[in-house]
Every structure is written in structure tokens, then in C-alpha cells.
């Protein structure tokens, strides 16, 4: 009896081991092509950039030259413009991300109800996403122009303004946030709409029978169920927003003063205008490391929300 049990256990352990190996092999069989492409497309450029960041960039040969250790990093960290650009980027993220998430999920919740033309409105929402960022920046620049723009003209009917949208440092940042929100809120609306459709109907029906109103269903059922998706959407949008560059380039050029000079614009200017490729690579590496750490924290938070009972 004991021998039979031992043999059975051995067999079971062996088959479990085989199953694990098989599972591991099948996972990697699917993942390998993507992994190879990722390494080729990402690892090489990143390692080359890192190499440049530790070198003196030789403009004669247009390649990294002498190894200078941490010199470029020291220069960057001592440059007030680097810290100022990081601050500007942080301000933009602090305002733009919550606004887009709240608006996106809010609009999705409002259009979730059955009504005629809902499909058309959903389709129209996609338009800002397919407009090139540079075009979006240019169009909004015209609309917000104090001399010719429609925004001040329209606000004038309500006795508001006129505003110097791109001449006032605070309003310039607000303009960038508005343009970015116009572009990206529809993306969040699409994700949120899909998430709302996947919510279990029976829970809402049960709440309705129990006498819960619209507001209670939103606060006590929809939002808790959506929390992991909101967190995941935040991470996806964060990764996009932290790369902010093109709208600023086309709408404000980082001005007035340095009010909208986000870190990516600064890196770009240092690299392609000042030809300081080594210092700009060091900045890019620092930003990459910082972004990776923050993304890791957000992902950890997002997983915790998903695993909450």
C-alpha cells in the first residue's frame, strides 16, 4: 500500500514537472518572436544611447568618442534647465492625467445608457485621436489666438476674457493641457466604454431592486468594479503623457519663458539644436530610469487593486 502510494506520488510529481516544463516551453514559443523583435528594436538603441551618455560625442565622425564616465550626468544634474523642465513636465502630468481619466470615464458612463445616435457619437470621438499632434497643436494655436482665435470670441459672449492663452505662463500650460486632453480623452472613453460593457448586469439589477439610485450605483458598484481598469488606463496614459513633446513644439515652443518647456523638448533642443548629443543622451537615460521606476510603482499599485477582493 505504502509502495503503491509512493509510486503514485512519484508519477504525479514527474507529470507535474513535465507539465511545468511544457507550459514554460509553450509560453516562450509564443513569446520568443516578440522578445527578439523587442531586443532588436529597443535594446540596441537604448544601449547605444547609454554608450553616448558616457562618452564625449565626436561631431567629426558623428559617433561616441572618448569615455568620460559620469561627466555628462554631472553636467546635466547641475543644469538648472534640466530641473526646471522636469518641474514643468510634472505640472503638466499632475493636471493632464487626472483630468483625462475623470473626463474619459465620466463621458463613457454618460454615453453608456441606450440612446439613439450613441454609435455615431462614439465614432466621432475617435477623430481627435487620428489628428496628427502637430496639426492639433497648430489648429488649437489658431483657435486660441487672442487676435483671430474663435475661443476668445466665443467666451466674449459670456463676458469672459479675453485671455492671452499663449502669452501668460499659467494659461500657456493650461492650453497645452487642454489640447492634450482634447486629443487623448477619446482614447480613455473607448477603454472605459468597453470596461462598462463588461461589468456584470445582474449586480446593477440587484441594486436597482434594492432601491439604489443612479449615484449610489456609480459610487458603490461601478467605481469599485472599474478601479483596476482605471488604474491600468492610468498606467497606459501615463506612458503616453510622459513622452509629451509634439504638441508643445507646435503650439508654444516651450514658452512663454520656459513655462511649457517639458523635458522632452529640452532634450530635443539640446540634441538637435545645440548638438550636445552626449548631455542629451544622459538626460534621456535619467528620464528613462525615472519613468521605469514610476511605471513599476504604478503597475504594482494597479495589480494590488486588481487582486483586492
Amino acid at each position, binding site marked *: 500500500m505504502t509502495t503503491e502510494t509512493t509510486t503514485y506520488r512519484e508519477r504525479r510529481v514527474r507529470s507535474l514537472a513535465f507539465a511545468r516544463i511544457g507550459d514554460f516551453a509553450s509560453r516562450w514559443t509564443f513569446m520568443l518572436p516578440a522578445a527578439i523583435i523587442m531586443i532588436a528594436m529597443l535594446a540596441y538603441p537604448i544601449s547605444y544611447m547609454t554608450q553616448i551618455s558616457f562618452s564625449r560625442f565626436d*561631431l567629426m565622425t558623428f559617433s561616441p568618442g572618448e569615455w568620460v564616465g559620469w561627466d555628462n550626468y554631472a553636467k546635466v544634474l547641475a543644469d538648472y534647465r534640466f530641473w526646471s523642465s522636469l518641474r514643468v513636465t510634472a505640472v503638466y502630468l499632475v493636471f493632464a492625467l487626472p483630468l483625462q481619466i475623470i473626463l474619459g470615464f465620466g463621458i463613457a458612463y454618460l454615453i453608456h445608457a441606450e440612446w439613439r445616435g450613441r454609435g455615431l457619437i462614439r465614432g466621432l470621438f475617435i477623430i481627435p485621436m487620428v489628428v496628427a499632434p502637430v496639426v492639433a497643436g497648430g489648429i488649437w494655436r489658431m483657435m486660441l*489666438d487672442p*487676435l483671430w482665435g474663435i475661443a476668445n470670441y466665443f467666451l466674449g459672449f459670456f463676458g469672459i476674457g479675453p485671455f492671452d492663452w499663449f*502669452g501668460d505662463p499659467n494659461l500657456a500650460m493650461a492650453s497645452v493641457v487642454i489640447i492634450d486632453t482634447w486629443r487623448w480623452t477619446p482614447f480613455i472613453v473607448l477603454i472605459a466604454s468597453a470596461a462598462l460593457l463588461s461589468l456584470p448586469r445582474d449586480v446593477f439589477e440587484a441594486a436597482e431592486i434594492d432601491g439604489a439610485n443612479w449615484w449610489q450605483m456609480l459610487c458603490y458598484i461601478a467605481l469599485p468594479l472599474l478601479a483596476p481598469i482605471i488604474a491600468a488606463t492610468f498606467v497606459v496614459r501615463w506612458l503616453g503623457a510622459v513622452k509629451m513633446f509634439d504638441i508643445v513644439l507646435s503650439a508654444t*515652443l516651450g514658452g512663454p*519663458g520656459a*513655462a511649457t518647456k517639458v523635458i522632452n523638448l529640452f532634450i530635443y533642443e539640446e540634441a538637435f539644436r*545645440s548638438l550636445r548629443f552626449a548631455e542629451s543622451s544622459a538626460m534621456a537615460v535619467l528620464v528613462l530610469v525615472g519613468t521605469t521606476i514610476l511605471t513599476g510603482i504604478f503597475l504594482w499599485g494597479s495589480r494590488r487593486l486588481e487582486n483586492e477582493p
Partner: protein
Amino acid sequence: MTRKIQKIGRRTVVVSGLAVMAAAALGAGASAQDAGLGTAEHPVEIRVSANESFANQMQTLVVPEFNKVYPNIKVTVDSVPFVEYLAKAMLDITSPSPLYDVAIVDEKWVPQLASTGGLADLKSGDIAAWTDVGYDWDDFYQAALSSGEWSGVQYGVPLRSNLLLMFYNKTLFEKAGLPAPTPELTWTEYLEQLPKLVQDTNGDGQVDAWGIDTYFIREPNTPAIWQAILSGNGGRFFDENAQPAFNNEAGISALETHKKLLDYAPPGALSHGFTESLQAFRQGQVATLFNWVSVYKGTAIDAATTTLKPEEVGVQALPVGSVSGGTYRGVWNGTVPANSQNKQAAWAFLQWLSSKEGEQFYANELGIAPARQSTLNSTPKYDWLVPVFTAMRQGFEVAAQGEMWTLRHPRSDAALQVITDETARALANEIPVAEALQIAADRIPEALQ
């Protein structure tokens, strides 16, 4: 004129042909590898990199005219955005086999590109041998020709010689009860006039016209405005050792003047640059505009792009400071990469473009700013060019007198970026003018390393 060009062309072909034969007889390796000027059976193809603002015009209007003289040289002009131009040009000319045979570059990039050894000397070696005997180097305004020179070597020829000038709307001056500006107008007089030029022209109680619009935005052309003011007052931006010379009373006063202009500029002018200021002027909303002479045709003549009539628009150098009027030179130079395999054809193209005949064509027909004295002293084909030529002559003279151009240094762009940053902060009131200039002066030596 076409006959003249053909005559020059034939002469060039004969001289160039003789030069090639002589070089071949001497066994000159580089010439032997060069593709020459092409034949009907084997045309030469050259590629030209040009800024996006004029690449299309060059391809569609200039190249066909060139091909009347050199039918066996096929020219493709590629449009490159300004902000990407320098990095792309650096990458290309340092290559053993560059993609481009001609690079039309902004004057501030000439030292940078020349210092890599990637540009050909246009006045010696094969290129000198291929140069037409009638090609008159001395006819160029020195202020324009020197823009293509670095360390005593001529690497570029001026193809589009822009000058920063003052445009004025005579109607708005008249409505304000002020006399139209003359070249003798001083900064003091101009600053006294500006408040009167902020006016309500239609009597509805709303201000609808302003005194000035120009570059105030955070971009590399903006410091040119206060540099022009500084130069007119006898100050200098950089000394002969490329060290900052603006961090003093004269520099502070010049940047303060630039900043003061904002008081008389339209709402939102702090974010105005080339396009916005030009539009405001073309729509009759500002009385004066500091912008490049190349915009004159679209501002005063072309009804499709302006609301103004030719008789309403005047142009001259910026107001006179304690020493002279002000301007700022911005010349696009034609250069030939040293490693080009089609140097002879490339030089034939540049030589024709910058010849007396080529300049006459594009100055008269396309309104492109010329650089030759013979062109600017000639009677233009169209009457509207008369004030432009007059203003340009004045501009070249004051530019040469006050060295009103950008820093000449292999790292000039890095220094200019520092000045751009600090100018923007001062104009936006983020920091006082004196502090901005101090920071810029402190940072520039490192940027130039």
C-alpha cells in the same frame, strides 16, 4: 536674358571642359572620378538639400531655368525642415559618400560644417578650375559673401540673402497723424510714436491696430531683434574671441527696448514669431513689423496673401541708434560636400544660381533677395522691387558697418540656444533682463567648448 545665360553657360561648359581635360591629363584622381557635367546620353544627377521654406520653389521654378543652360544635369531638391537641418547636414557631409551634392545651409552653420572638413573650398583646387572666368566674386556685397567664409576659406556662395528690416504700414501712420518713417528715424522718435500707433481705426471704441509686431516667441530668431538694436547703438554681441560682449549697460538697454515693444504689440504677441507677426501686418493690424526682406512680395504685392496695397507698404532698416540703423543678416549659402562624386555638376548649379544672370532671374521673377551689387544697383524689372533694392543696399551697408550677424563659431548654435532661453525668460518677465544676460554670459563659454 535667356540668351545671356546660355552664353555664360556655353562659356562655362568650354572652360569647365578644358579644366577637366587638363586635370585628366595631369592624372588628378579626384577629377577623374568626378561625373563631370554629363552628356545627353549619360546625364549627371545631383541632389540638393534645401530648407523646406524654399525647396519646392527651387525645384519647380529655379531648376527648369537652370536646365535651359545645363540640360544634362538633373537636379533633385529635397526639402528638409529647419530644426532637423543641421544634424542631418552634419551626418551627411561627414559620410564618405554623402547623399547630397549641394547643401544649402544657414550661414550660422557654415563654421560648424566647415570645421568637420566636410565642405569643399570653392576658391581653390578643382572647383577654382571649374569656375567661369567671368564669375565675379568681387561683385558680391562683402557682408553677404563673408557669411559663407570660415577661417579665411570660402565654403559657400550666398543664394538667398535675407536681411531683417522694418516694414511699415503708411495708412496706419497717416491715421495716427504721424509722418511715414524715413531711414533717419531714430529709436527715440520711434518709441515716442509707438503709443500713438496703438489706435482705434474704425471708431467703435475698441483698439484694433497696434504699433509693432515681431519675434517675441521662444525661438532662435528672437534674439536677432535686440542684437540689431544693440548693434545700431554701437554695441557688440560677441567680441573677436567669440566671448559674450552683451552683458553690459548697452546689452541691457537693447533687451529692455525689445521688451518694451511688447507694450505696443497686439495681445498675445509674446507668443508671436515669424508667421504670427507677418499675418498681423498683412491684415493691417500693426503699423510696423520687423521681419525678413524676403517676405516683401507676399506682404505688399500678392493679393492672395495680403490685404495691403503696394503703395501702403514701406521698408527700410530698423530705426537708427546712436551709431547707425539696425539690421541682421541671415544668408542661405550654397555649399558642396568635399566627398561629393558630382562636384563639377554641383558647382555648375551653384555657380549659375549665384551668377549675375542667375541672380537677375530669381531676384526679378521670384523676389528672392540677391547679394550682388550689380543686381541691387540695376533697375529691377518690376517697380515694386525698387524700394526693396534700396532698403537692401542700405541694409547691407549697416550690416557690414556694425557686423550685424550671428556668432561665427563651430558651436554657435549651442550659444544661440542659451541666449534664446534667457531672452525668452526675460521677455516673459520670469527674471530681470540684467539677470538673464548674466546667466547667458556665464553659460556661453561652456556651450562653446
